């Protein structure tokens, strides 16, 4: 009856908010878990070393590559260069889809090189760029690993049904982040973020896709809203706005931010926040905890794409193919604590470190998967409406 989809499908199924899902949540989860358990070790023909050369300029989000403790060496990048001879200019430029795209918009519109050979953007933004025909086609013959190893449920997104323009990089979920010492208690629900004693120490994410979805799911749990995030109507948006507004006005919610919350967990100024799943595990302090809220959560995927005009598309394809090697993918995900879209990687992660099998960030429990919903990807008009709502909350 509800069209929620569960992490696996939503992370990939040919589901859009308009398309009826093929699976229930449970079936989706089952597919996901089955996929995880499925045969690893299968390594397709193309070795990934497609004889590329030169330099690969790759823009990515922070926390998305496996830097070792020295903070300098990434086994993934090093091995790629050894194998292909392509030097990687890896840049953690992207801190927000919108901010980053604003710096390449004019080039793309003019059909010029953006400087980047590969960019990593979240589903909704990937969809937007593909729709405007700003993304290069990926030649399946040059990415045999990716063709063979992409988990079935990720295939056939409505905005790129043929898998012609993108391959997923990592999957993240939203949840409640809190500092156990500051709060003095454990949190399991979104509603608990609003306990009066946290006043002034609560922050939310500055993208409506995250904040409105999570609060909307909380209101849905309370019976105020009947839709899931991907299908929120403008009225649903108004209700979420009306719920949050008083908390903003009396200073209960101190700020709407991006990853800055990690710093402010550190300085003790933030106790509770909506956060992205891998962040606190990766970068937070010992007492910073991530929880999947019981009311439900959203998840989405960041995707590898080659912008039109890229100088070294072959290098980018070599990298995509390399990242879809099962062993490489497993090591990467184990390092950064995000969910890999590579078939067999899950099994391989357990081989790397059996303890990771228990890590809920890498292996969300079935009940979490069952209450995971698709990240919103609204059309321009609704996007503007929701953007406006959160802008008003943010005071701008």
């Amino acid at each position: 009856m509800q069209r929620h989809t569960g992490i696996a499908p939503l992370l990939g199924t040919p589901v859009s908010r308009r398309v009826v899902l093929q699976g229930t949540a449970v079936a989706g989860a089952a597919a996901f878990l089955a996929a995880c358990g499925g045969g690893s070790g299968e390594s397709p023909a193309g070795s990934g070393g497609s004889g590329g050369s030169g330099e690969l300029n790759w823009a990515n989000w922070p926390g998305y590559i496996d830097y070792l403790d020295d903070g300098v060496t990434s086994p993934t990048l090093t091995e790629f260069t050894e194998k292909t001879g392509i030097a990687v200019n890896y840049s953690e430029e992207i801190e927000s889809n919108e901010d980053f795209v604003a710096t390449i918009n004019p080039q793309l519109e003019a059909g010029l090189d953006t400087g980047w050979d590969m960019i990593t953007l979240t589903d909704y933004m990937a969809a937007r760029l593909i729709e405007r025909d700003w993304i290069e086609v990926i030649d399946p013959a040059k990415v045999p690993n990716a063709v063979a190893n992409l988990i079935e449920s990720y295939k056939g997104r409505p905005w790129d049904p043929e898998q012609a323009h993108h391959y997923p990089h990592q999957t993240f979920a939203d949840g409640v982040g809190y500092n156990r010492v500051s709060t003095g208690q454990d949190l399991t629900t979104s509603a608990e973020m609003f306990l009066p004693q946290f006043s002034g120490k609560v922050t939310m994410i500055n993208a409506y896709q995250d904040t409105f979805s999570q609060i909307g799911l909380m209101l849905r749990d309370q019976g105020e809203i009947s839709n899931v995030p991907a299908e929120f109507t403008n009225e649903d948006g108004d209700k979420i706005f009306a719920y949050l507004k008083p908390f903003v006005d009396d200073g209960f919610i101190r700020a709407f931010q991006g990853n800055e919350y990690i710093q402010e967990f550190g300085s003790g100024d933030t106790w509770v926040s909506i956060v992205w799943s891998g962040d606190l595990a990766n970068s937070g302090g010992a007492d910073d905890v991530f929880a999947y809220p019981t009311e439900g959560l959203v998840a989405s995927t960041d995707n590898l794409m080659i912008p039109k005009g890229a100088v070294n598309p072959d290098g980018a394809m070599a990298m995509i193919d390399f990242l879809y090697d099962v062993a490489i993918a497993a090591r990467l995900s184990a390092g950064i604590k995000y969910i890999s879209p590579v078939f067999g990687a899950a099994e391989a992660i357990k081989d790397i470190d059996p303890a990771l099998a228990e890590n809920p960030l890498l292996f969300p429990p079935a009940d979490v998967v069952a209450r995971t919903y698709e990240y919103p990807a609204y059309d321009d008009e609704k996007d503007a409406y929701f953007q406006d709502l959160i802008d008003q909350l943010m005071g701008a």
Partner: protein
Amino acid sequence: MIGRLIHRYRRWIPYLLLLPGLLWLFLFFVVPGIPMFLYSLSEGRAFSPTFQQPPEVWAWSNYPDAVTRYADNFRNSIAYGGLATIFTILIGYPLAYAIAFRGGRYKSLLLFIVIAPFFTSFLIRTISWKIILGNDGPFLGIVRDTLGLVPANFSILGTPLAVVAGLTYEFLPFMVLPLYVSLEKVDHRLIEAARDLYAGPWRPRGTMIGGILGALLGAAIVVGLGYADVVGPDQNLALIGLGAAICGAIGTLVAHLLVTEAFVRVTFPLSIPGVFAGSLLVLIPAVGDYVNAELLGSPKTLMIGNVIQGRFLNQNDYGTASALAFILMSAILIAIFIYARVLGTEELSAGAV
């Protein structure tokens, strides 16, 4: 040779001096400003099919709409930018004065110590302040937890005070440097002569002026920081009065005990170009600043720069964003014009505007 050339073409010299700099500004500021101006009359979101700009539409309504909708943010910008300017003068003037007149051989060293913090990264400075003033930091540890001077749930982050403090710190060198260069050139013999002429302290007129200025300033701080907002309308006047009384007393004392007539009649007038330059160098960027409000403020303290940033990046709303930018620029220009007329002597208003 050159000298004779200069003499012959004297009329052209100012234009030659202006040419390279103005050409640069024309090419890389004015020319790109033209598409921005067209954007400010556009409708819809940039880089999307719905986007329309002149000559298809001429959405002049962007301008009044932006002013009405973002009046609060304009108010914040003016209040915080203005307060930051005042605080930088209060801190910067005595500092520049001390360096210029008492610095001796160490003038340039002292001046460098003032500016060198700003060669490090903005983010590092802000983070250092957060370590000091953060919820778990030493400052609140003493003031709140040990002494109990503020309520238990008080924190500095997210208040207007934090934003103004951030702006004040960030722009202090922009005040100190021009003040220093205009004070440093003041001829010491002039001051000596003035001392002989005008006895000593600036009393009793100075005492009164100091008191009045202090009281005005106190009221401005209370209103500007929005404390009046926080405690509710009933106590507004009482609070403003309290602020005025405290600052008035401080002003009286300072003027009574420290300010000499020689300073008021000679040094200060000679440093007015520095005050003028410094306050503009602080006020203009501070009013348009967004980053302090974003990192240190709350949704209620956002400034107009944050709105412009947000409309541009998150909404691709180039229409509103560039309209706001042009409104901001013209408002600042008008303010400068008036300021120059008010503050300016003959020479200054001719020289500055």
